[in-house]
């Protein structure tokens, strides 16, 4: 009896720091998410009395909601169609150019939609080079690919952006799945498809559900892609919120739509955490040499080649079109009909470094890159720290944890306009003032990145056999030493992957940033928008050049991080 009592006291004492640490993400969340969002809702309700007319309301809500769900469903489906096979080949095979390919697939995340739209137009637009090429070859009068401003363009852009989520989230888990399970299944007479359905899929269920949910939410709240590539025929809830809030100054309507979007998101994340709460089969970190092999049959080779080809067409060619455009000067030659002359040029790059108009807001590219990087790095630190602490809490399987899990996903389904305006409403006096508190931008980015980070770190954390930490404790290692020598090396792979996600989200995020940005801290997307907001060939060329620099620098940074793994885990 006495002994038990003693033990209990010891146990609760032992968990105290754990619980305190677990509170940090909650406090962060309450201050930087619930406070601004509820403030904006309160304000919307205060103003609601006179501005909302009920009879017109239902169609104004129903149409964008229906379209948001429908396009998100289609986009997620097609992203999965490319993303799952891609995740499979990245997890299971060795092939030349793999690490480069893996980096390239993360680049779309950092690209502002305005340049991506330009890239798609340069590639498959009515006068994009693919259409020009096809028209020349087949002697066609009209461009054969006419998908700009259609649902197809929206889906294509979403596939472009989100394939990397499948590759990282599912591929990451898949690489931890013991290949021998698949071999055993095969030797028992199960074909590849049956093995996938009966063995792989059930075991990777959490990763699959996570990836689908993340991508669905991203597509569901899509804004710029719908606006710029879908055209005016399409409006998601997010587009409507933007229009209502910023063009009609109808805050109550925006608040209502935002609330509906949020309720829908909450519904989805609740279903998610409910379906995902069952037994999770722990996957342990594995040596890539054990799980990755060279393709040896013709089918495998063909499969890899075709997936790489598809990835290249959808992910790389639009980006490449941008790069090429940034080096090309197009001159119209005055002759009969349309005749264009293409010329190599470096002038868009040269002019980036000159403040031609002597404007006080001129953004030197290096400053923009530095700002973007610093904000990105702070986001990485915040997101990894909070994501790690939240993941620890989430590893305990209690009812509270399930609610917590669902809530942490909410920022993904929250309109950037709502969050941005909420920040302005709440953080306008010291100590946290939008005008002077420089951490608000990385904090906003952290909110968006956190769901991704948690989805990656949590499974890795669960996969650490308790045996390891226990045996280390038996050998007299302090908790800190255990963490440093056992947990960190095992988690480092997940940390790298999650950190890259947080970084790319931060670099590319534009929605909430526009509300919080400060002219003294311009980021790359903001610089790009400044160029594109005025007419003139030079502005356009400079925007493309800036985007190219962004792409190259980020690719190099990711490449370095992926290479400079922490010592001692180079084999993993």
């Amino acid at each position, binding site marked *: 009896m006495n002994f038990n009592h003693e033990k209990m006291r010891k146990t609760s004492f032992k968990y105290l720091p754990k619980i305190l640490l677990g509170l940090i993400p909650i406090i962060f969340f309450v201050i930087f998410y619930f406070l601004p969002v509820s403030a904006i809702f309160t304000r919307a309700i205060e103003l609601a009395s006179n501005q909302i007319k009920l009879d017109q309301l239902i169609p104004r809500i129903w149409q964008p909601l229906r379209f948001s769900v429908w396009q998100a469903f289609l986009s997620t489906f097609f992203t999965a169609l490319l993303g799952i096979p891609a995740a499979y080949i990245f997890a299971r095979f060795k092939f030349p150019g793999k690490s480069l390919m893996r980096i390239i697939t993360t680049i779309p995340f950092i690209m502002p939609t305005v340049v991506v739209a330009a890239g798609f137009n340069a590639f498959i637009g009515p006068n994009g080079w693919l259409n020009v090429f096809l028209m020349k070859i087949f002697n066609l009068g009209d461009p054969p690919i006419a998908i700009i401003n259609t649902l197809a363009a929206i889906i294509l852009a979403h596939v472009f952006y989100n394939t990397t989520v499948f590759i990282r989230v599912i591929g990451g888990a898949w690489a931890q799945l013991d290949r021998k399970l698949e071999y055993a*299944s*095969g*030797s028992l007479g*199960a*074909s*590849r498809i*049956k093995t996938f359905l009966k063995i792989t899929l059930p075991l990777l269920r959490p990763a699959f559900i996570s990836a689908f949910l993340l991508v669905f939410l991203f597509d569901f709240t899509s804004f710029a892609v719908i606006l710029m590539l879908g055209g005016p025929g399409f409006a998601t809830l997010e587009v409507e919120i933007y229009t209502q809030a910023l063009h009609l100054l109808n805050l109550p309507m925006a608040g209502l739509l935002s609330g509906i979007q949020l309720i829908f998101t909450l519904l989805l994340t609740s279903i998610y955490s409910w379906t995902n709460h069952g037994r999770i*089969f722990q996957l342990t970190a594995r040596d890539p040499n054990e799980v990755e092999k060279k393709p040896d049959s013709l089918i495998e080779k063909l499969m890899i080649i075709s997936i790489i080809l598809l990835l290249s067409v959808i992910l790389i060619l639009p980006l490449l079109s941008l790069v090429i455009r940034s080096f090309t000067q197009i001159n119209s030659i005055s002759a009969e009909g349309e005749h264009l002359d293409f010329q190599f040029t470096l002038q868009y790059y040269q002019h980036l470094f000159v403040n031609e108009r002597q404007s006080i807001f001129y953004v030197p590219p290096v400053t923009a890159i530095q700002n973007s990087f610093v904000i990105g790095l702070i986001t990485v630190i915040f997101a990894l720290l909070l994501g790690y602490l939240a993941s620890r809490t989430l590893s305990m399987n209690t009812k509270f944890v399930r609610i917590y899990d669902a809530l942490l996903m909410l920022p993904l389904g929250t309109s950037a306009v709502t969050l941005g305006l909420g920040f302005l409403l709440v953080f306008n006096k010291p100590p946290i003032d939008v005008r002077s508190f420089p951490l608000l931008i990385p904090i906003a980015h952290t909110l968006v990145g956190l769901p991704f980070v948690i989805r990656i770190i949590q499974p890795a954390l669960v996969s650490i056999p308790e045996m390891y930490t226990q045996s280390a404790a038996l050998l007299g290692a302090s908790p800190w030493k255990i963490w440093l020598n056992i947990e960190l090396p095992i988690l480092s792979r997940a940390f790298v992957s999650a950190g890259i996600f947080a970084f790319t989200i931060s670099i590319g995020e534009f929605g909430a940033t526009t509300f919080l940005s400060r002219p003294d801290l311009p980021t790359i997307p903001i610089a790009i928008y400044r160029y594109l907001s005025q007419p003139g060939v030079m502005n356009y060329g400079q925007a493309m050049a800036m985007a190219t620099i962004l792409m190259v620098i980020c690719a190099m940074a990711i490449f370095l991080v992926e290479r400079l793994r922490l010592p001692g885990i180079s084999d993993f």
Partner: protein
Amino acid sequence: MLSIIDIYKTYEGKPLLRGISFDVHEDETICLLGHSGSGKSTLLRIIAGIEKPEGGKVLWDGEDLVNLAIHKRNFGLMFQDYALFPHKNVFENVAFGLRMLNLSEATIKERVNIELEKVKMVNFAQRRITDLSGGEQQRVALARALAPHPRLLMLDEPLGALDKTLRGQLLKEIRELLHETKIPAIYVTHDQEEAFTIGDQLVLLNEGEIVQHGTPKMIYQNPKNTWVSKFLGFNNIVPGKVTSINPLVVTSKYGDFSLIIKDNEKFSLKQEVKLLLRPNGIQESSGSENLIYGKIIDSIYLGQGFRIFIDCLSTTMEFDVKGDYKIGDYVKFSIDPSAIHCFQSD
């Protein structure tokens, strides 16, 4: 039944298997024996259909299997860590292969029960895999592999993860099961004790090549070279030169050794050879033939007797003796000519 013909495979430019050929006959268990890295597991994967050889053939009754997918081969497979499906219980693990045959639910139930009976796991049918001990998992893995009645069973270090006592017990059971089911089997291991217990034929692999192939008895009696001898645990190797053919006499730095063997003719005079002095068959002697002398440096009690270690001209030799010796004593033994084996220098 199964013929492996001239299998060739490289890994990152280095040869992993260099022309491996052997046959597996009906009711026969073949043991692939070798150190880790010898290529034995790769060979097993090639036979299973997990990997493809770069050269050579895998034939089943004359039919080339190289392009036949793993799930169409009907070869049972068992891994060192069992690879049981963690999301299925014991029953469903064993039933998995049967479900792939589209059998009726009743038949599946019946056959799963039979298989679980064989491995004495009937009472565990509804248990979770994660709740089983290592030995129990091993039995389930065996039942699962046997359930669809494979035409060949392959076991990759099936006992590697178990402790010694359990290993002995399970080894016996596997041996009985293999004899009972009459399924030809390929058993991969690095443990010669296991191999000698279970294998009808042994295939010794080293650096991607078959070093020796034969029955356990044959290999034990005629290890082909130093490597095989050492692998079998024979450490007393003495280099020497043939000085007489009939009777065969080999001169070494320890003196002359005369041997009693059948095929004296394969040796020629002045040929460099190596002698294997088996640890048994020595006696203390004052004679002048087949002598070994030196200082006792260690003695280990083994139950029936002792194993003593003698420093003979700076080489440590091991012998089994009945009585105990004091460390530091100088001794002189004569070796029974039938306990000496001679092979060409390699």
